[in-house]
């Protein structure tokens, strides 16, 4: 039988070796997580999972109602790119679903094998660590799912469950810890931020011949601009663009050294850190007494 959709060939385990660097103790102590993987990681993860099932309808519902129709399977760029079947959204969710079935559903508790339920063991944990960090949470699968099952919700839950047991990746935890120390993902300290802004002012004076300001921590400005921190550091053309636009429009604006990051890596780690990182924007807006926040990311 010939199908109109080309069927990507499956290569089992094709990207299982692509593994993120594990988190470091120095970052974990700054983001309210266990310093190292807990000895009772299994119990800690199951406890967190039970808590999350009661707090997130999306998680419980999406674990329950997937019919494995396969509509999402060829929509994930990670599957199309790696050909690893565990990167199909449905199979990725199954990594969590089989543990959910084993510990939280009647069918899985009574007759685990028939229900594809599986104990939470070292091998499953390794699969979780590898494949739940090979999802970019883009939510493309949810567009095509007949029930709107959002694998990003399941990825986020799995990462939060792992984080509760002290299991995370270095990239994400390091960035979140940096936000709490410096206000941004890149780790630009306040003096450097101010210096960069002065440098851009001088540059613009030379190029445009006008005094275009890059205000920092200006209390009482109308608008707080929250750019991606890279705009002040690498993609400075974007930062120049903001300044020119505000200058031309005659709007008073400012950036904040407390919160100069529009990206939120808490989303890739857990709810508590996502909330804390976002809260910095509110806090900066309150302290600077601005009227509006512009999100530049």
């Amino acid at each position, binding site marked *: 039988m010939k199908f109109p959709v080309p069927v990507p060939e499956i290569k089992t385990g094709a990207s299982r070796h692509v593994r993120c660097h594990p988190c470091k103790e120095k970052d974990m102590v*700054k983001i309210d997580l266990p310093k190292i993987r807990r000895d009772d990681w299994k119990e800690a993860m199951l406890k967190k999972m039970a808590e999350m099932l009661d707090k997130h*309808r999306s998680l419980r519902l999406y674990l329950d109602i997937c019919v494995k*129709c*396969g509509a999402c*399977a060829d929509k994930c760029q990670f599957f199309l790119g790696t050909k690893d*079947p565990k990167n*199909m959204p449905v199979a990725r969710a199954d990594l969590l679903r089989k543990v959910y079935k084993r510990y939280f559903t009647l069918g899985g508790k009574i007759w685990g094998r028939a*229900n594809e339920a599986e104990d939470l063991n070292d091998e499953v944990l390794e699969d979780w660590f590898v494949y739940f960090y090979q999802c970019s949470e883009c939510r493309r699968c949810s567009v*095509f799912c007949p029930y709107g099952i959002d694998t990003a919700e399941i990825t986020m839950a799995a990462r939060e469950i792992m984080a509760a047991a002290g299991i995370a990746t270095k990239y994400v935890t390091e960035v979140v810890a940096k936000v709490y120390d410096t206000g941004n993902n890149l780790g630009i300290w306040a003096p450097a931020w101010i210096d960069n802004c002065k440098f851009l002012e001088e540059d613009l004076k030379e190029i445009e011949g006008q005094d275009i300001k890059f205000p920092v921590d200006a209390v009482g400005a109308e608008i707080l601009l929250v750019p991606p921190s890279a705009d002040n550091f690498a993609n400075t053309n974007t930062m120049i663009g903001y300044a020119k636009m505000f200058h031309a429009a005659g709007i008073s604006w400012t950036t904040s050294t407390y919160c100069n990051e529009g990206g939120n890596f808490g989303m890739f780690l857990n709810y508590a850190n996502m909330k804390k990182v976002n809260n910095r924007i509110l806090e900066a807006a309150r302290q600077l007494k601005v009227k509006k926040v512009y999100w530049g990311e």
Partner: protein
Amino acid sequence: MGAKLLYVYLPYISAVVFIIGAGYRIWLWGKTPVPLRIVTTPAPKTRGGVLWRVMGDALWFPSLFKGDKILWLGGILFHAFLWLVILRHLRYFLYPIPGWVEGLQTIGLYAGYLIPLPLALLLVRRLVTERNLYISILGDYFALVLLLGITISGVLLLLFFRTYVVDVKDMVLGLVHFDPRVSEPHWLFGLHFFLVMVLLIYFPFSKLMHSGGIFFSPTRNQRALFEKRFVNPWDYPVSYNPNNLFPPDKYSQELAGSREGKKE
């Protein structure tokens, strides 16, 4: 004794399991809070728009149509035929038979004859596509084979092994009015009836609950009201970790003018 077990005890057991089981699952979804607005865009801004979107998803599967045409065809035919068949079967449960059930008789019969075809299509596409074979588990095949068993036995009852439907209706009405009467219809009817009871018992524990769950899906039943703040029902205040070098009180000190004293 066997007949009494099949036609009296089993129907009541399966009805209780189905109603309590499915009700519990739906109650559980309903009471679990939704902490964030996660609606898939483009999303409707009004309640009417949400109703249209959810009903559309439940009735003609637009998301699936975007994703997989063969699957959409199999799915929509199966579900449409299933509804017609179920509604036609109401004539065995109601007395007198309402006019609209009478009106569905012919189309319901044709749906009944054809329903094994989309089921077979759904089964075959699981087996011939490598990735679908990979994700399919025992439960997926069990549900399809069970439904094939029910529908094929139903078609055979219509075509070759015609049961005396007056007896069947008498038995069903007896069950409905809690006045069960044991009857001895054809063994094939017994099989048809038994498989339906198995389906009812299996239903609440399985993926078949998608029929209720689709109405609870937060990516589909939320509005895109970004002007209004979405409040998390279990929201909590933020606490600060003593290991963090840049807490809010330090920022207020800096804003108050102590920046000059800082080492650059």
